[in-house]
């Protein structure tokens, strides 16, 4: 059973009044991430929106130790902390790397691949807001087809986004999961599970961004939920190679009642000028993916 919101620990580790933009989904997500970690972690953060959320010297909005690092080296710096804690025989805290999609899928992927190949004892969490938001919404490899960014200003992005969890699965690491701030119970459960595992764990978080996706700040949770309900973002976990749909996505697989991708994208200014053919391509991509993942889910979980 997914943890109910009322069952979540009351202790808060992200302080209110931080420097994130209005309606930022990262605050929602990491409020629950840090609850699931019970505050017993050191966070490793490259240049990213999370750096902004953390605040400027000498104040901080996070009550956990935070180690800032250069943009490409998140997983390497986390590997160093993990190695040092191991050498010291310390098991009291988890090493948790937190990077955006650029810091994970683009500039950070080499160090991440290295850490994953070594099966380094750390949890790497990518919050995917689908572009370089901290620098003003430039295209990343995680920007979806058709989305307008400041570096794809006229026609929208011409390529599909990368499937980073699939890349991570190719590294044979013990745990991979996706989660959404729209479904905090599912997110909490996955982080809680990952926390007590050893080896390299990877989580990919959907992170709708009002400022960069151009939707009202009050709609963040709705957009996050629509991403899942349309099937554009899928909630699942792969534990020691075993794939399982979770939460809302599991119910969507059973009932096949996904909303259309067009509906999910309709409130987002970044897709306002995207033509119908491109939206149709995105729908095809989602449908093809769901054919694959539902087959995999029912094959690997025959009783469900």
């Amino acid at each position, binding site marked *: 059973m997914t943890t109910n919101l009322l069952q979540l620990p009351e202790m808060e580790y992200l302080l209110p009044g931080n420097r994130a933009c209005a309606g930022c989904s990262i605050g929602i997500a990491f409020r629950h991430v840090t609850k699931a970690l019970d505050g017993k972690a050191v966070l490793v953060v490259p240049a990213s929106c999370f750096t902004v959320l953390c605040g400027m010297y000498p104040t*901080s909005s996070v009550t956990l130790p935070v*180690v800032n690092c250069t943009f490409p080296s998140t997983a*390497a710096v986390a590997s160093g902390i993990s190695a040092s804690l*191991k050498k010291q025989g310390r098991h009291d805290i988890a090493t948790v790397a937190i990077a955006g999609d650029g810091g994970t899928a683009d500039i950070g992927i*080499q160090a991440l691949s290295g850490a994953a190949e070594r099966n380094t004892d750390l949890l790497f969490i990518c919050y995917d807001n689908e572009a370089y938001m901290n620098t003003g919404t430039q295209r990343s490899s995680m920007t979806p087809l058709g989305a307008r960014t400041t570096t794809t200003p006229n026609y929208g992005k011409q390529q599909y986004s990368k499937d980073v969890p699939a890349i991570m699965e190719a590294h044979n690491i013990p745990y991979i999961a996706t989660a959404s701030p729209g479904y905090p119970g599912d997110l909490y459960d996955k982080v809680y599970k990952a926390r007590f595992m050893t080896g390299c764990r990877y989580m990919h978080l959907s992170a709708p961004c009002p400022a960069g996706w151009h939707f009202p700040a009050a709609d963040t949770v709705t957009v996050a939920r629509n991403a899942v309900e349309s099937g554009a973002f899928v909630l699942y976990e792969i534990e020691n190679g075993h794939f399982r749909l979770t939460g809302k996505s599991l119910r969507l697989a059973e009932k096949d009642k996904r909303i259309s991708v067009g509906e999910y994208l309709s409130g987002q200014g970044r897709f306002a000028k995207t033509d119908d053919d491109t939206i149709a391509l995105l729908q095809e991509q989602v449908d093809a993916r769901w054919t694959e993942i539902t087959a995999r889910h029912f094959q690997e979980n025959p009783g469900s």
Partner: protein
Amino acid sequence: MAVKSPSVAVITGNNAAAEAARLARVDVIAAYPITPQSGVVEALAAYVESGKLNAEFVNVESEHSAMGVCIGAAVAGSRVFTASSANGLAYMSEQLSWVAGSRLPIVMGCANRAMSAPWNVLNDQQDAMSQRDHGWIQLYCRDNQEIFDTFLQAFRIAELLSLPVMVCYDGFILSHTVMPVEIPDQAAVDAFLPALTPQIIVDNSDPRNINPVTLANPRENGSGTLCHGYMEFRYLMQEAHQEALNTIESVDAEYASAFGRSSGGLCWTYGPEDAEVIMVAAGSLANEATVAADLLEETGLRAGVLGIRSYRPFPDAAVARALKKARRVIVFDKSLTYGYGGPIFIDVQAALFRHQVTPEVHGYIAGLGGRDINARQLAEAVTESMGWDRAQQGPKPTSWLNLQL
């Protein structure tokens, strides 16, 4: 406890570096292979696998990550080690800046090698010189014993000042050449180099945000205390470098009293007190210059050598003091700041000007990309330089030794 007499090993410069790291009891090692550095980390990997060294060895996928791992481990309180050369060092460049700004006492080796393009794996000092301004202390070694001694001193210096130290030694010339090296026993090293007292602790009961965005101006914290702006942090880094001018000398003196061997502190001299001409260089080239000085003495020219051991901080006062009696100073650089001249040449001139010492200074670029330099060539360069008449010919342009255009 009685200190056992040291053993003498006949080893390469790379192995001397690895022996020092082992005896320094480093906790975490991260490295990526590059010629001519690879031997250091191969030796350390073997020590860790055989249980001779109790450390975590992290086989990273790049030099950028090698220094990333060192940063993480040092922040968490470990004594760390890595080494690189040339392109590898350049690839970790932004990390070098991050290490210094973080005031982490990281010690690394640089087996000096030419920068590409075109590809060249042989020795010069362009790699380390190109990374000069990040805030690392740079110490240059003249032989394998000095590599061993300097690494042990480097950990002590780094940890006293919270500044990183790069120990530079010439690729192949030292890294791959065997020489006798005295290796003290562990107890003696432990007495000289106590366990690291980490400055930054990952502690959830006292959580810190390490290296967040820092504004230009000082800013108040939650309790109203005014805290440093970016510029104050940078000033303190410079102040630590100024202090390093004393620390490098005092640590070398401590080392000499513990092990009976000095590496010269900031810089060392060779030859007669009243040398008419003094050759200046860093690393193994300075050693070669001592042979050239002897050759020149035989011809009746009183010649000496000033070996630059600490390039950053640059010991301007000590350099001026060492050169004040010379009529002519000839600086041999194994690197070049393109569009001007050799970096040591430039700094020596500035030091002399600052201290109002006015011998004529000539610059030579030598040994780039492994071009052989022998004592005879150095002596010939000195003879050529002595014949230069500034009044007639003007300032002598920088010459390239053994250039075959």
